């Protein structure tokens, strides 16, 4: 295999890995965009979503798409519940308290799940045909194409919701200034609740799809993808939906190229070096505008 061939194959590998980061990063960035909370529990909500999907498919004997919807609905409820119990009481607390609580929620979900589902990884039954296409010697996986297209469709739907609907307008208002929005008749509590509902449903969708693609799920599966998705969201400009997708794909491609042409040992180091570089050079991310911080 010559160099060019390897390069193209690595780009394909990178985009497909990146589309998974992008899918998780969408929910991350959405929640951050509205309430400025880095929801470190997002990766674990993703894990819970994967388990609900798994349970629906294996014990409920239903096919993958209804299972995906069930998982999204239930996980959305979980997201709203977490917001009510853990984040809402801290709405006026310093932001660091929220961040620490989010880490707490993350551990809580991980180890509660571990207690109930045991640490043994589960394998999804074959619910989707896994076809690989060989295009001129390059291998493209069918499920990965599906994940990529779902990511782009979800991004489009979300952008529409946020930019064009009344709920979206309320979200943007609440994001700009929660209290003033409330004075203008926006029910901020409801808006934030809806944000968590949508964000968690997205995480669930990602969890189920990734579970099906990689074929295994376990209670700690959300940690690393959660962190990588966070990097992706920051890279694209946290709070900006298309930024999350582009950030995810860029991150995936960088990882694949580093693993393929330097050394696979540096792969994660490269991912987090990107985070540090972005924070140093352009903290608002690729798509972010440099705005003056409001006081």
């Amino acid at each position, binding site marked *: 295999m010559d160099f060019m061939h390897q390069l193209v194959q690595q780009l394909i590998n990178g985009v497909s890995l990146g589309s998974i980061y992008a899918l998780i990063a969408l929910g991350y960035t959405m929640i951050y965009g509205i309430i400025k909370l880095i929801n470190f529990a997002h990766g674990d909500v993703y894990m819970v979503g994967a388990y609900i999907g798994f349970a629906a498919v294996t014990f409920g004997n239903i096919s993958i798409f209804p299972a995906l919807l069930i998982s999204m609905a239930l996980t959305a409820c979980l997201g709203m519940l977490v917001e009510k119990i853990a984040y809402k009481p801290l709405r006026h607390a310093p932001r660091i308290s929220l961040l620490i609580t989010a880490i707490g929620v993350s551990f809580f979900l991980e180890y509660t799940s571990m207690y109930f589902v045991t640490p043994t990884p589960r394998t999804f039954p074959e619910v989707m045909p896994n076809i690989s296409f060989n295009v001129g010697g390059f291998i493209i996986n069918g499920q990965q194409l599906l994940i990529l297209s779902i990511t782009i469709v979800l991004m489009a739907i979300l952008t529409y919701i946020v930019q064009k609907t009344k709920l979206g307008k309320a979200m943007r208002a609440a994001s700009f200034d929660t209290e003033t929005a409330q004075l203008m008749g926006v029910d901020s509590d409801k808006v934030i609740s809806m944000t968590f509902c949508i964000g968690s449903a997205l995480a669930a969708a990602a969890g189920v799809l990734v579970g099906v693609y990689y074929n295994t799920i376990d209670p700690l599966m959300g940690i690393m993808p959660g962190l990588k998705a966070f990097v992706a969201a920051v890279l694209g400009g946290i709070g900006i939906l298309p930024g999350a997708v582009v950030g995810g794909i860029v991150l995936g491609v960088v990882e694949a190229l580093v693993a393929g042409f330097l050394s*696979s040992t540096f792969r994660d180091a490269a991912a987090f070096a990107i985070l540090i570089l972005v924070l140093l050079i352009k903290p608002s991310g690729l798509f972010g505008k440099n705005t003056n911080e409001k006081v």
Partner: protein
Amino acid sequence: MFFSKKKFRLASMIACGILASALFTGCGGGDSAGGGGGEKAAGDEIVIGANFELTGNHAQYGANANNGLKLAIKEVNDAGGVNGKKIKIVEADAKSEAAESVNAATKLISDDKVVALIGPAVTANVIAESQVATDNMVPIIAPAATNPDVTVENGEVKPFVFRSCFIDPQQSEVMAQFAAKDLNAKTAVLYLDSSSDYSKSLGKIFKEKFEAEGGQVLMEEAFLAKDQDFKAALTKLQTANADVIFVPAYYEEVGKIVKQARELGITSAILGTDGWDDSKVVDIAGKDALNNTYFCTHYFEGDEEVQGFINAYKAEYKNDPNVFAALGYDAGKMLVNAIERDGTDSEKIRANIESIKDLQVGTGKITMDAATHNPIKGIVVIETKDGTRELRAKIAPEG
């Protein structure tokens, strides 16, 4: 509003409390003593400690080994116990961390007054624990820690540390010879888990042995435990076009590696070690992907002499045992045998484990090598064909 302000504050404080406790479980000491239930040890029961990774990254290995141990002890107790006394297992959680393994061992020894320890499953955690056990003169049997350094330090055997499995150099040697002789491989690439000492040491020894057989190791790549996507490194390994790929790692990653390698069109033989030994590999990788893969392990499930253990395990836990369960079971049987012969004095237990000879345990007959504290037992090489395992070679114990 559902709550009054006061109630709400209370609710939020409770929630914070729960979260904080969840957050800090990772840092706590060896847990409180749980009421000091072990004091009656000298009476009508013998207390042994099970120090396994019940939570954290290695929980799946620790929990299985723990199940195997519990089954062994249950069988003994159901048959009337040892010399008329029942055996009680006190469990402690090594939390998949070396420091926690030490804490758990200390707690078991000083609070629960255990006469011996079984576990943990993973090499690093056993090595950490072995100092505490040696200082307190409490024997340990590590079920699945295959690193040579577990029982030996600076060339001298640790008097109180034993294991119930073979050691890594044997595995790498068997697989290197298998690759060179049975598969006629001239070239190999290594794909190692750089977060695991197990994988790294196996890779190193495989390289030595394979080169000694006249083969060539062309490339070496690494991944981390819990990785999901291996395609980038596999694409790179593919460029070497080697006869075999050696992946000494644990089954969860192995399943995904084999699946993704075959998706990328890599058809070479993929070789592994006992970390592969779990039926889940087939579920994860898929039947077709696993053709032309070989790994060595502790027993072959089709063997006559292991049927007793497998059936007992299935009856107890309603699923198939994996290798950790089998080795946990063996460790339990070895300990019981030692206690049976001369009581619970720790020095006597130590001497009696050391002198185990031709003891029938779950995976076959074992004899303890007093010089190294490694059991002398056979290794099997297993080939997976269309999802079922076939015995490819059986290497008899040396010496």
